[in-house]
């Protein structure tokens, strides 16, 4: 096996493991971070596939833009929950008074 072939095989295994890690993570933020890392792994894989164009895109989208959007959505959702809780607590406090 050539050097390139070995490299590709190693990265393929890493990508497979990465996919599993992303899909199995249960905490949202951790999952997004894993997704970002998975995107980078894919980018490296594409680079060894002689696809620099796709590498750039995958880096830009898969490991930066998408995780950013995802995190923003997650913060939005978590904050909304916190805000609801805070409001509920507030109302409960007022109710007691």
């Amino acid at each position: 096996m050539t050097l390139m072939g070995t490299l590709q095989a190693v990265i393929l295994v890493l990508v497979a493991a990465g996919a599993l890690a992303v899909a199995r993570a249960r905490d949202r933020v951790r999952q997004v971070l894993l997704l970002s890392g998975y995107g980078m792994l894919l980018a490296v894989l594409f680079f060894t596939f002689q696809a620099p164009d796709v590498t750039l895109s995958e880096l830009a989208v898969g490991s930066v833009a998408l995780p950013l959007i995802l995190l923003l959505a997650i913060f939005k959702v978590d904050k909304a929950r916190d805000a609801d809780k805070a409001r509920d607590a507030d109302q409960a406090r007022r109710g007691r008074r």
Partner: protein
Amino acid sequence: MVAWILAVGLHGIVTSRDLIHQIICLVVVQSSTYVLLLGVGYVTGGVAPYFYDISQRAKAVDPVVQALTLTDIVVEAAVTALLLSFAVQAHKRFGTLDPHELVEFRG
């Protein structure tokens, strides 16, 4: 390999109790198509299809699959962003992201 990524992603979608988690798994499902596309177009020993500083006769990998993958990545970004906005709305309307509790309709 591709089947593995696909299976892992689909398993995530099927078992997940969280919409955002499902959407991320959908991204994983789609990433299997990139690997497959680039994999089928690969030529052992081929170079990247750019002839700026190398001879045009050099053995190169297939440029078409790379173009297709680029298109695919844009589609992924677009669909994911749209799905996330649905998820944010769902959270606002239902107060949860658990697909089992988003049941305006049954039957």
